[in-house]
């Protein structure tokens, strides 16, 4: 938890939204099903959570092993989402949603470079590299809906999520050095793109209100999560990385 200078706790906005939704669902009375069988949702919003991870690899230079470290931050970013659902029985239905999230953040790069003339005399260099995370997720969901009041439809959903994740990883470091080579300066950090699929889960709530019998607007709150294994850039095994997060957005609602 972050704290202010005066010591009062600070509630982060996304946490506040989630709490508000929970209050709404809890207060929701049991109502009849919507009469439409098929619904379509189009959303845009933000993946409100951020994650971080670190890669460490061995850098062999001048016949000696040094180390290369990259600290990645997957910051919050925009997502788009397209979904469709069908009511199967009473308030219960099935749905599928496809979301896409992309963010370009920085990777902090630090390295201990072996000296060309001396053993165990490492030169520290640091810099940054652009690192992109792209997540395409297919959410297969069981949906349970309810109507609250005359206009509001509330749908709870959850199920498996199939992630396709692309992540840029720092694979090397380029630097400049001049005699006597006691120091080096960072030039750039080459990267590689890793792509991997994984299965996780999601759960969430959709709120919709219809302006016409078939067209409405709504809000989406969804949390998804999976662990994906990325191949390390140095070939040294796999790297487990979290994917998914909290999506908060809204958009168009259609029902037929």
């Amino acid at each position, binding site marked *: 938890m972050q704290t202010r200078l005066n010591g009062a706790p600070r509630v982060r906005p996304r946490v506040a939204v989630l709490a508000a939704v929970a209050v709404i669902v809890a207060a929701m009375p049991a109502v009849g099903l919507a009469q439409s069988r098929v619904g379509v949702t189009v959303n845009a919003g933000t993946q409100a959570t951020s994650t971080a991870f670190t890669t460490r690899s061995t850098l062999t230079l*001048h*016949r*000696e092993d040094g180390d290369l470290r990259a600290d990645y931050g997957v910051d919050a970013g925009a997502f788009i989402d397209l979904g469709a659902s069908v009511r199967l029985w009473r308030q219960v239905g099935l749905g599928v949603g496809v979301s896409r999230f992309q963010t370009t953040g920085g990777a902090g790069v630090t390295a201990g470079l072996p*000296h*060309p*003339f*001396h*053993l165990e005399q490492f030169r520290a260099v640091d810099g940054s590299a652009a690192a992109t995370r792209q997540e395409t997720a297919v959410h297969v969901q069981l949906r349970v809906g309810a109507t609250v009041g005359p206009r509001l439809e509330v749908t709870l959903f959850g199920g498996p999520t199939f992630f396709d994740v692309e992540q840029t990883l720092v694979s090397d470091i380029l630097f400049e050095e001049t*005699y*006597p*080579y006691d120091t080096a300066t960072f030039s750039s950090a080459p990267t590689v793109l890793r792509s991997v699929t994984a299965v996780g889960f999601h759960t969430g709530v959709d709120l919709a209100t219809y302006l016409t019998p078939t067209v409405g607007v709504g809000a989406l709150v969804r949390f998804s999560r999976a662990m994906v294994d990325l191949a390390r850039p140095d070939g040294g095994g796999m790297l487990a990385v979290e994917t998914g997060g909290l999506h908060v957005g809204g958009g168009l609602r259609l029902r037929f």
Partner: protein
Amino acid sequence: MHRRTAAALGSLLLVLLCPASVPAQRALIAPQPGLGRLTVAAATPAELRSWDGTIDQFVQRGELVMRSMREDPVLAGHRHETFIQSYWGIPVYGGSLVRQTAGGVTVSVIGTLLTGITINPTPALSAARVAAILGEVTGASLVATSAPHLTVFRLFDGTDRLTYRATLTDMRTYFVDADTGEVVWSTAAVVTQRAVGLGTGAVGDRKKISATQAAGTFRSYDQLRPAPIRTYDTRGLLDVVGRILFSGDVFDSDFPTDADNTWTDPHVVDAHVHTGWAVDYVYKQHAWNGVDNRNSAITTLVDSSPFTEYNAFFAPPPFGPGEVGVFAYGRTDDGVPITALDVVAHEFMHGVTSAALRHRTGGEYEDQFELGPPGPTTVTFEGRTLACATATLTGTDEADEPQEFPFLCDAEGRFVRGANHAGAVNEALSDIIGTGAEFFFHPRGTGPLRADYQSGEDILGFGPIRALDVPHAFTIRARPSPIPYPDHWARSFQYLVVITAGTPDAPRAFAFAPVVLIGRDAFLMRSADDGGVHINMTILGHAFYLAVEGGTNATSGLRVQGVGGAHRAQIEQAFFRGMTVLMPNAPSMPVAALTVYQAAVDLFGVTSAAAQAIAQAMVAVGLLEAA
């Protein structure tokens, strides 16, 4: 009996020290050796102005020739002019001056002039004829492009000779009378690091080696440093040694190679790597680039032939293929390479000294055969009393034929003595820089790969061969008993002189005898060490130690307040600047002491701890006296 007295030498050595900008400089003088040869003028601006005028007159008359005028490598606005003494256009061996100015004002004048030269400057013999004579006498030949050239040379008896100077493949430099063709003097053309002793060392330390990949393998060719380093292996073949040294021809096949760049020959590894470290040390500590401050390519030999057994040496140009000479490293008869860091840095500094003096003066750093105070008329040796007039030394001549050599006596029948103090200065600076490099790369301590004030201690079966902290703790083999290394100017080895050509009444050529006196007792050593260059060096080296660490000189009892190990670099820099920027090319040891002190004043100020420590140290070892 015709005996010229050594005191009749008309040489004048002058040292003027007056930093006009620092009038509070401590007045120091060099001690008089008793023969009136050394004069140190008072350090006043007026006297310096006077010498400015004198130098200008000498230049106009052609008696001094300016060989270089260089900006100071460290101090902005400082300039150094180096003059070589000339006689009818012929260089005078040992005569040179270095004038330092700051903002156009003379700060110091240091050097040596030989006066009273009156010889005929026209040679009777041609250079080609002298080359032929040398070949007949020595069996050696001229090195590469080294042609005999005229030089005025002053002998021990005070006479001047017009000589041809030439360096031969036996690695000696000869001075041949240009009228008679007689060899009047010879000296080693290489500066060596050698001794026989016992000690500990020879460690199996891992280190990086900068190599070059070529033709599917790796060569000991360092191209990472601005000054490329090529280390060749003669594979113990004398003809390869000769080819590289004397003709300068090297082939790719002379490179030692390694298939996987994991080198296992410690001879190659240590010679190559430590040469690189020496390059790094002079660059980082002294802002000096490579051997010659121009990053010229460096040639290093590892050799397992008898030529370099128990030896390492630096051979200046014209030896070798490059611009800066050749560094060669042998091994003990047990196969232990003579390539410890302090030894390699020692030889490297010889290269630096040679290049610095060559570029400033147009000539090599030169030995100076300085006369010491005369000895007694009789001495004792192993219970026998020997008179100078009748004693002889049994030795061999240039043709290795046994011969009896009479001793040179002065007009009073006293043994004439002398030493090669310039050579000792050269060796001392190399030991100091070798020690500095060791402290730069190794942690302080005792044992292998630890920095200390001993030399060659990491070479099993070779060192330590001497020490700068306690010189007298090490001895030189001699009959009837070993003699400790000197730690004070008063204990410097003064060698008796023998006549190698001519008669006692009319001597024509001379050499140092491997005999020194302690009181009236004579001690016979294995060699004269070219006038004690590897022995008297410990006097100046001990001053370096005292200036850094402080302490009391065992002979004088004088205490020195050193700067402490944390400020070691300042003392090293003063010595390095003294040699590379200010030193004339044939200094006596007191002149060298003054030069180093002047360097400390230039760099750190007259009131600095470094300048004061050096002044105290030079006084403590007897090289300087308080005015």
